[in-house]
């Protein structure tokens, strides 16, 4: 496999391997990580492939160090990533916050397993969705993506790198054990068909460059260390020069900017699929592996004459607030299957504000939700709201 960064062709590989191939196709050349089931195969593939394409793989001592290493890699000008699962994701939280505060592009793939704690190492969960949004302390916005197949593991990893480069922040791939370990067809395009976004670089010289001065899109151009620019990079609240300022105005300006660069560019970030929702009386909202079961349920119900549709979230954070608010005005119920005891459903409840029924189809983790359970929930909602 040495030498070929984009493995053009048709493959039958698992989601973890597809994630690694997506990263390589996106130009990732630095991976630092610590093995953990069910994410190990991402690291394993990267360790096999990176040396052959001029990249570097490091197995770090733990996940705290892994996260720190990829922030450093990114400031060194190299697209960088790590992968982990629940316990490691918890350890990464502090340095994900450092990445958000220092606006450092990088990608973290969390192949979710059932928790809390060590939980069920080899079995599926979707219990880290709110942790993805709120797990690091303080005020910020995050971008998180949820693939539902090995093909999407490939495609969405490229997307994650593009978003991280464009908006200068860590982007989270919220995968799960089934998507990570399942083998399926993955089509990898020709290298010149892969659309890549690169971070914007400063146009002025070192004397006038301000590393945290946003451009018109709310994102500051990013110099690479070693290019001759003077940079002070800190997790302390800082001004546009990057110097610490322990004042409320600086905190207000900085956090507002971290929020605005995401909330002000939703048209470029939000990504969801609306399937059969035009005339739907009940909508199913799902992401990751649960979106596959939901699709199966919705298609079977449609065949049986039920007016039901699917809202499949590709980007889960930021949440498509306007769309779900509008959806809640025209459906009788929104059914939310997820492999936790109620996380993304809280967003739906918040936005629906009682305008329609919101029904959770929960699973504590260790297995996936069957299409049959979702079909039952949809039928129950139709009866309860008629």
């Amino acid at each position: 496999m040495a030498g070929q960064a984009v493995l053009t062709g048709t493959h039958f590989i698992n989601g973890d391997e597809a994630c690694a191939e997506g990263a390589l196709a996106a130009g990732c050349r630095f991976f630092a990580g610590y093995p953990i089931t069910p994410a190990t195969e991402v690291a394993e593939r990267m360790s096999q492939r990176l040396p052959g394409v001029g990249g570097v793989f490091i197995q770090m001592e733990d996940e705290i160090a892994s996260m720190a290493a990829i922030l450093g890699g990114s400031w060194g000008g190299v697209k960088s990533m790590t992968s982990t699962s629940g316990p490691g994701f918890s350890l990464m939280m502090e340095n994900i916050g450092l990445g958000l505060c220092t606006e450092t592009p990088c990608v973290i793939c969390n192949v979710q397993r059932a928790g809390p704690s060590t939980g069920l190492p080899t079995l599926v969960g979707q219990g880290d969705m709110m942790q993805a949004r709120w797990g690091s302390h303080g005020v910020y916005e995050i971008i998180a993506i949820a693939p539902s197949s090995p093909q999407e593991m490939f495609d969405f990893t490229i997307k994650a790198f593009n978003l991280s480069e464009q908006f200068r922040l860590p982007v989270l791939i919220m995968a799960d054990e089934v998507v990570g370990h399942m083998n399926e067809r993955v089509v990898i395009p020709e290298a010149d068909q892969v659309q890549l976004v690169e971070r914007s670089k400063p146009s002025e010289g070192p004397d006038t460059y301000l590393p945290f001065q946003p451009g018109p899109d709310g994102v500051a151009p990013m110099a690479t260390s070693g290019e001759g620019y003077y940079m002070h990079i800190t997790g302390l609240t800082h001004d546009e020069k990057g110097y610490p300022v322990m004042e409320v105005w600086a905190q207000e300006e900085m956090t507002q900017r971290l929020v605005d660069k995401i909330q002000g560019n939703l048209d470029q970030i939000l990504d969801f699929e609306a399937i059969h929702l035009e005339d739907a009386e009940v909508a199913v909202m799902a992401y990751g592996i649960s979106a596959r079961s939901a699709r199966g349920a919705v298609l079977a119900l449609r065949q049986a004459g039920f007016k039901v549709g699917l809202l499949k979230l590709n980007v889960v954070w930021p949440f498509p607030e306007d769309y779900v608010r509008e959806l809640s005005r025209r459906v009788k119920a929104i059914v939310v299957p997820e492999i936790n005891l109620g996380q993304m459903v809280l967003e739906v409840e918040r936005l629906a504000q009682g305008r329609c029924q919101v029904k959770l189809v929960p699973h504590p983790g260790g297995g996936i939700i069957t299409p049959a359970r979702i079909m039952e929930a949809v039928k129950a909602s139709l009866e309860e709201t008629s």
Partner: protein
Amino acid sequence: MGMEQISQHEVIITGFGGQGIVLTGNILGKAATIHDGRHATMTQSYGPEARGGACSSQVIVSDEEIAFPYTDNPQLLICMSQEGYENNRGALVPGGIMVWDTDLVETGELDPSWIAYHVPATRFAEELGNKMMANIVMLGFVSAVSELVTTESLKTAMLGSVPPHTKEKNGTAFERGRDYGLAILKSLAKQEGS
């Protein structure tokens, strides 16, 4: 054999860690997707042990996109261990194909609706010099008794999945299993004819 009427075929392969159970599922999936141009998913279940623990692989082959990648009721069950047989025998559909390793599984009474075959896959592999190839013997056998994937695709997928220096031996193992399957089919046909 009852499998032709439905567009989705479901298989469970079960054994213990180290037998190549997951590789077997992977090869079936590769044959179906890359070489036969159909849809397939392969999922696996295993415990925390690297070797010796119970493990299984599920393969779904379909002409349409597969929403749910697991099955509770396969039409084909391949058992390479006693524990795998005990745990999964109840899942096989009536009329389904049950295949087991003659020397590794004691079946007891079988459901009379099943089409049942036993193959001394591990013994054949040992005779060929490496019992690690039992799964490939099994694949060759399956190519004879089931139309899950085309034989050519299965063989190509197998040769592309094993270490290059083992291709020749694995090719022989595949043919050994396939020949055994074809011989059984022939003798069954003879019995029916007489």
